[in-house]
């Protein structure tokens, strides 16, 4: 029998907190998310392969037929969309891991501690948002390939938008995760949440005016100018396609459309929705969702369950 030293133990009160806000707890939970992300190279690889598939292969592949969208090449047009896709995956993956943490991971250890759950949630949400920025930055590395010039301002702006989008999506994912009983629903989450939000956000097709499709006739520049004055944006090809009304309606109710539109403006100076709506949704929805997520986590972990 080996001798066991005297038990370890430091008398501690409880983390310092003000109305549920304990900076040390927020920091340690955020740091945990960072460590987990940094060690999970498969997630980075996923971001890289998504970028190559969507931006490079689809961008150039479909771009060969779809000549331009309001003066932007197709690959340029979908750049913000690919960033958004990476953010959606990163944020939801971070959030859904909560189911795991709750059942067989560290969450029970957290819940039985005196640390305020609000700070734990905040650390998680900020962690998800930070990972989102990291994953969303991967497509930016490909911009020289598609001829987009970045400035310091546009990159900083893009990071801000990615952060708020990531915060919003992590919060949404946390709200879903608190309602999931087991992990079996994970596949349906990625198909049932990420894909509709992505496809119905104007990420891969433009929203307004005229969508010129696959054509062989060039529209002369003067005609294009006249159309533009009428609020119609002519694109490469020779005929005119209108987005079906029901799709348009779905796009308008999808919050990601506005966040994506703001990101596109920041990166390309190209915007299809009103700036006020973009700003309101991007900077308004995230804090609201975060509060609801913190409340959902509190509910999930509270003793009344």
């Amino acid at each position: 029998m080996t001798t066991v030293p005297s038990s370890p133990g430091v008398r501690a009160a409880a983390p310092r907190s003000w109305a549920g806000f304990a900076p040390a707890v927020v920091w340690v939970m955020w740091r945990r998310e960072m460590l987990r992300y940094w060690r999970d190279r498969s997630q980075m690889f996923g971001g890289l392969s998504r970028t190559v598939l969507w931006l490079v292969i689809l961008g150039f592949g479909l771009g060969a037929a779809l000549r331009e969208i309001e003066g932007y090449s197709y690959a340029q047009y979908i750049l913000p969309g690919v960033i958004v896709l990476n953010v959606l995956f990163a944020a939801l993956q971070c959030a859904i891991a909560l189911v795991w943490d709750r059942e067989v991971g560290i969450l029970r250890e957290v819940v039985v501690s005196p640390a305020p759950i609000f700070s734990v949630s905040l650390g998680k949400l900020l962690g998800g948002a930070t990972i989102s920025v990291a994953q969303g930055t991967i497509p930016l590395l490909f911009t020289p390939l598609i001829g987009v010039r970045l400035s310091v301002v546009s990159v900083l702006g893009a990071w801000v938008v990615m952060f708020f989008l990531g915060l919003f999506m992590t919060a949404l994912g946390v709200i879903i995760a608190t309602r999931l009983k087991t992990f079996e629903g994970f596949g349906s989450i990625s198909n049932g949440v990420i894909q509709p939000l992505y496809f119905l956000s104007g990420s891969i097709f433009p929203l307004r005016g005229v969508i010129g499709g696959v054509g062989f006739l060039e529209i002369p520049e003067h005609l294009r100018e006249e159309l533009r004055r009428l609020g119609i944006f002519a694109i490469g090809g020779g005929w005119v396609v209108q987005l079906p009304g029901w799709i348009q309606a779905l796009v308008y109710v999808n919050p990601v459309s506005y966040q994506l539109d703001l990101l596109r403006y920041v990166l390309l100076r190209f915007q299809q929705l009103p700036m006020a709506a973009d700003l309101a949704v991007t900077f308004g929805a995230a804090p609201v969702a975060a509060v609801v997520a913190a409340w959902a986590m509190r509910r999930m972990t509270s003793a009344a369950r």
Partner: protein
Amino acid sequence: MSPDAAQGGPLNDRQVAGGPPAIVTEGLTRRFGDVTAVEDLSLTVHRGEFFALLGPNGAGKTTTIHMLTTLLRPTAGRALVLGHDVVSEPQAVRRLLGMVFQEPALDERLTATENLEIHAVLYGVPRGQVRTAVTHALEWASLADVGGRRVRGFSGGMKRRLELARALMHAPRILFLDEPTLGLDPRGRRHLWERIDALRREGMTVLMTTHNLPEAEACDRVGIIDAGRLVEIGPPAELVARHAPAEDGDLEDVFIALTGKQLRDEAATARDKMVSFARRGGEHTR
């Protein structure tokens, strides 16, 4: 159950005079819908006592521990931990207890050191003392040389020792161990038990659940719980003398005599299935 049994028989000789008992429950009940997991549980655990709740899976042991550790709200009755009500003063209770869950509650992607650091912050260990506390905990668990390794690669026994050391980092006054040796091989079991024994010598109050008989027999007192009810309570030797006086009688015989059944296993729950899925290394986000 006699009222005498509810009071827990003779006081433990190591009981510290003065101050409230470690744990007092009165009519503690928890229902999940129509199912009553714990019914009218009244018991007292004294300070410095080593107390085991013995019963089969699904008997209500874990539910009881979860109520005592503020994770579940009782449907009826009340529970005091060192004089603090678990419902009205959960924060006070949480500060005083250390908990080891039935399934590891570790972040497997992080190293042992990182897991301990998180714990230190969650319990408000002063920043200047975190490193010492972590080092000490690793040494106590005999994991000092693997502190920088990820927990994913640890054996079941190493994880348990890590969790036990972690539960002690904030100097708790009561330790709750939910099936601490479940799933460990004999060697892992022995290593863990040495440490639990060392705590006992230091005078720590321990409430553990188990369906392992030798472990229960090593405790000061045992509460036998079946289908949510406490059916008997007392020192193991006394229970054996009372209910299984045959020469080779043991706690299993006591259990059979009292409940008419073996310490049986129940069908796997959804959560059990998920846990076993995790053990097989499923799910990529881990």
